[in-house]
């Protein structure tokens, strides 16, 4: 979707202001919001793509005035409500315990899958299709309609657009595509090129 999170190239957010000796968490509630989000992710009641989709589809005023972990907590509250947790309808695939946290995190959640042979190879010129999907996507607006060159084939990965919607993993080839920065931003850019990971359904031959 063309939501509040898709802001590559936008103005109006001010300079980047690093905090010296920043702590990992700034308040006790942030620790809890973080841990609850990971623990609930492990239950399998929703996918990582769906949780991203919920965060990224918050109303713009709320998104831009919330801190990072406020966004996480707000999204988690919505996911929990949607899953019918309070009504006792949620059946977890697993519940993390103190003993299983470390092995589960060390294993992670790889998203490479068997799937279709890639249509493009390194060196191919491609164009990102023009699109304005109302649902979740990982094709940022700033590359849509632009031409680039495939520099790497990452293999076949879970397709977030369908997975976020509960419509299955629909594995798709994933590419790293290089765009000359001037073709994205004009001559004033200070980048030489911008590399973006893009799924095959976003692309067409250029």
């Amino acid at each position, binding site marked *: 979707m063309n939501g509040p999170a898709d802001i590559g190239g936008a103005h109006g957010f001010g300079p980047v202001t690093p905090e010296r000796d920043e702590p990992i968490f700034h308040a006790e*509630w942030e620790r809890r919001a973080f841990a609850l989000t990971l623990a609930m992710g492990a239950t399998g009641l929703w996918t990582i793509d769906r949780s*991203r989709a919920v965060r990224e589809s918050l109303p713009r005023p709320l998104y831009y005035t919330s801190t990072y972990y406020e966004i996480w907590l707000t999204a988690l509250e919505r996911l929990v409500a949607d899953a019918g947790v309070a009504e006792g309808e949620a059946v977890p695939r697993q519940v993390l315990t103190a003993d299983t946290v470390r092995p589960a995190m060390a294993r992670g959640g790889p998203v490479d899958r068997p799937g279709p042979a890639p249509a493009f190879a390194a060196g191919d010129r491609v164009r990102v299709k023009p699109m304005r999907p109302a649902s979740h996507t990982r094709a940022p607006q700033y590359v849509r309609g632009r031409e680039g060159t495939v520099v790497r084939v990452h293999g076949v990965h879970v397709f977030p657009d369908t997975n976020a919607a509960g419509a299955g993993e629909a594995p798709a080839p994933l590419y790293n595509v290089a765009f000359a920065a001037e073709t994205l931003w004009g001559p004033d850019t200070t980048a030489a090129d911008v590399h973006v990971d893009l799924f095959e359904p976003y692309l067409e031959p250029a």
Partner: protein
Amino acid sequence: MSEDHSHLGDMEVRVRALQSLLEQQGLVDAAALDELVALYEHEVGPQNGAKVVARAWVDEAYAARLFDDATPAIAELGFSGRQGEHMVALANTPEVHNMVVCTLCSCYPWSVLGLPPTWYKTPAYRAKAVADPRGVLEDFGIALPEATRIRVWDSTAEVRYLVVPMRPAGTAGWSEEALAAIVTRDSMIGTGLPVAA
């Protein structure tokens, strides 16, 4: 970004209410939450990535494996898992400086860098890095030579990128441990450099 006490109090109330609901329904275990916090607050952090970089600086064969297929090469040092399942290592050179961002959210290689700093997650960084990385470097007090090309990597999928900065001059003969100590977190994101040798 209000941080007054009543606001923090609201967040505390919300998070407690949610936790007690989830515990009541048997979906989360309080001891597991403590372990998750301990793991990512105290154990998984940029010291992991610094070891990878230092090894790449001293061991050419390791560097070759790292740049060929980073995930198993990083796993050789014991680092794997969540938000590091599909790793790619990027070599900085005098010609090309790499910078990593996630314009859409906050994708970041947890297994080697830990949880991202706040600035990495802010709209300010996500908006600016892809168009004006030199401006970002200025925000960090860094000026690179004009001739150095800046390549920005937007982590839009589940592939995570680790920048391998150039080994500073004057470090010949240093131990791997001493080298790892000068590899800063920001130098592995591309918004910093190793601290002066």
